[in-house]
């Protein structure tokens, strides 16, 4: 069998193997599957014939055709090494074929060299084929690995996209929620402001009737004493005309006394109006030395008369035990007044409620006490109302907690009072209560207030 035939068969097998799945392969490639069998037979048949040199050329022609075909196809672009593998054998078969045509003496010698070269060429071919197979396998493996990696990358990319979408979705959701919460917070803050304001106005409303009463009384004196004085002056003139000096002196004395009463009651009305204005004004936050006795007494009367005006059946006695030695302390008068007023309103409400339940034998009473205890002053508002039930005692300072019927209490009074006393004045507001006995609210304010307790 000639080398060219062998190469042709190898090439055909290889060609078929590579191209059988290629879509644009020429149709004859399909018939190459078993082509190696007839070629084999043909090759051996030619071998036995004497004219083998002619057939050698046919083989070479076939071989060249196959080689050129392979070189042109892109499928074989990475298997040029195959060509290198068959190259020595192809050259040898070429030479042999030519040498067989010219049978010269010298050629005989060359021929023997060629004969020796043949095995080397075969070894070369075999080695190359082995290397080629190995390379192909490695390549296939690598390709597979690459494909696997690519597939994995695709999966990862898909997952990543999915996750990113999810994150975007969630972020949008959270942002929306955050915005909603922020809006709610803004609304709540506004509502809180309104509630604090309405609480203030509500307590002022409770005051108005008391204020009317408290102003009418001093006005009564101012008007009438000044009228009296006018009359007295006329009488005095009469006495002067009569020369009754004793009478003149007596009348002058009366006029002076009356005038001091006018001044006293004028100031009283003034203080009430000022107190009311102060109460309705926004707190300046400015602390000033304040006479707690006067402030507490004024609000006690305002609260009392206010309730009295609103509820005709309301009736209670009140007492004051004010320490005349009480030093002035630094408080924000508007804020502090609100606290005291709130405690009085609560106390009067408590005794009024108890009165409604116990018609006979109960004498409602509210006691205001001021005293100095070492370096603190205490303001105690005590009532003999129904007391605070144990189960709600820890709730009374909570905002919006109220025992009053809906719409009657804001539930902010004690909560605000607590803040004003503790945060605003560095003091303490505590409660002592006994069910069925009464309640005591005790405000204590340190005499020496340091800078950090400023509101």
């Amino acid at each position: 069998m000639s080398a060219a035939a062998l190469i042709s068969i190898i090439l055909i097998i290889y060609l078929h193997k590579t191209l059988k799945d290629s879509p644009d392969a020429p149709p004859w490639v399909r018939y190459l599957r078993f082509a190696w069998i007839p070629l084999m037979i043909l090759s051996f048949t030619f071998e036995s014939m004497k004219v083998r040199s002619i057939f050698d050329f046919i083989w070479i022609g076939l071989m060249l055709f196959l080689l050129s075909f392979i070189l042109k196809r892109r499928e074989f672009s990475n298997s040029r090494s195959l060509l290198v593998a068959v190259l020595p054998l192809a050259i040898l078969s070429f030479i042999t074929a030519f040498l067989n045509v010219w049978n010269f003496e010298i050629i005989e010698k060359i021929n023997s060299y060629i004969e020796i070269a043949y095995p080397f060429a075969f070894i070369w071919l075999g080695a190359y084929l082995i290397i080629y197979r190995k390379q192909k396998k490695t390549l296939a493996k690598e390709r597979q690995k690459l494909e696997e990696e690519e597939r994995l990358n695709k999966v990862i990319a898909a997952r990543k996209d999915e996750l990113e979408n999810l994150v975007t979705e969630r972020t949008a959701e959270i942002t929306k929620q955050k915005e909603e919460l922020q809006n709610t917070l803004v609304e709540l803050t506004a509502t809180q402001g309104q509630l604090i304001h309405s609480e203030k106005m509500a307590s002022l409303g409770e005051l108005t009737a008391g204020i009317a009463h408290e102003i009418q009384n001093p006005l009564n004196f101012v008007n009438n004493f000044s009228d009296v004085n006018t009359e007295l002056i006329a009488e005095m003139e009469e006495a002067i005309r009569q020369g009754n000096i004793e009478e003149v002196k007596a009348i002058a004395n009366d006029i002076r006394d009356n005038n001091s009463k006018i001044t006293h009651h004028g100031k009283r009305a003034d203080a009430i109006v000022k107190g009311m204005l102060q109460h309705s004004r926004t707190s300046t936050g400015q602390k000033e030395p304040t006479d707690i006795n006067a402030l507490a007494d004024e609000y006690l009367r305002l609260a009392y008369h206010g309730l009295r005006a609103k509820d005709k059946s309301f009736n209670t006695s009140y007492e004051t035990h004010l320490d005349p030695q009480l030093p002035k302390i630094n408080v924000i008068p508007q804020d502090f007044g609100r606290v005291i007023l709130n405690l009085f309103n609560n106390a009067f409400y408590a005794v009024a409620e108890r009165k409604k339940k116990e018609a006979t034998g109960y004498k409602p009473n509210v006691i205001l006490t001021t005293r100095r205890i070492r370096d603190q002053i205490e303001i105690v508002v005590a009532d003999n109302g129904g007391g605070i039930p144990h189960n709600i005692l820890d709730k009374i300072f909570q905002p919006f907690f109220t025992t009053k019927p809906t719409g009657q209490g804001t539930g902010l009074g004690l909560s605000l009072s607590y803040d004003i006393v503790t945060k605003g004045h560095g003091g303490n507001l505590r409660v002592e209560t006994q069910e069925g006995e009464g309640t005591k609210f005790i405000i204590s304010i340190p005499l020496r207030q340091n800078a950090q307790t400023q509101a």
Partner: protein
Amino acid sequence: MKILVVDDELDMQTLFEQRFRREIRSHEMDFAFAHSGEEALSFLKTHVHEAVLILSDINMPGMSGLELLKEIKGNFHEPPPVVMMITAYGDPENYNQAIKLGADDFLTKPIDFTVLKDKLKSIH
């Protein structure tokens, strides 16, 4: 004529004494003063039939003027004294309640003494 003035405002006494000084001097009128409803009642108990006219404030700590009015009109049968209410609250509710309880008249603060004097004289 004996008149009992009931008011928790202490200066009310001075004011009445000054305003009616001529009547007091001429013993035309005689004034007594009480500073609470309770005080007024105990005065009335010890001075039966003495006071023919009572002028009472409504808004007082403890017993209110209206309660006092109720007591007087309910318990002092023979002949019940004339009671005039004087209050800083001129609202209809107070007025109606006072009249319902038997008040003979109703005045608001600041007191117009000219009007009061006329009323007192017309009773006499």
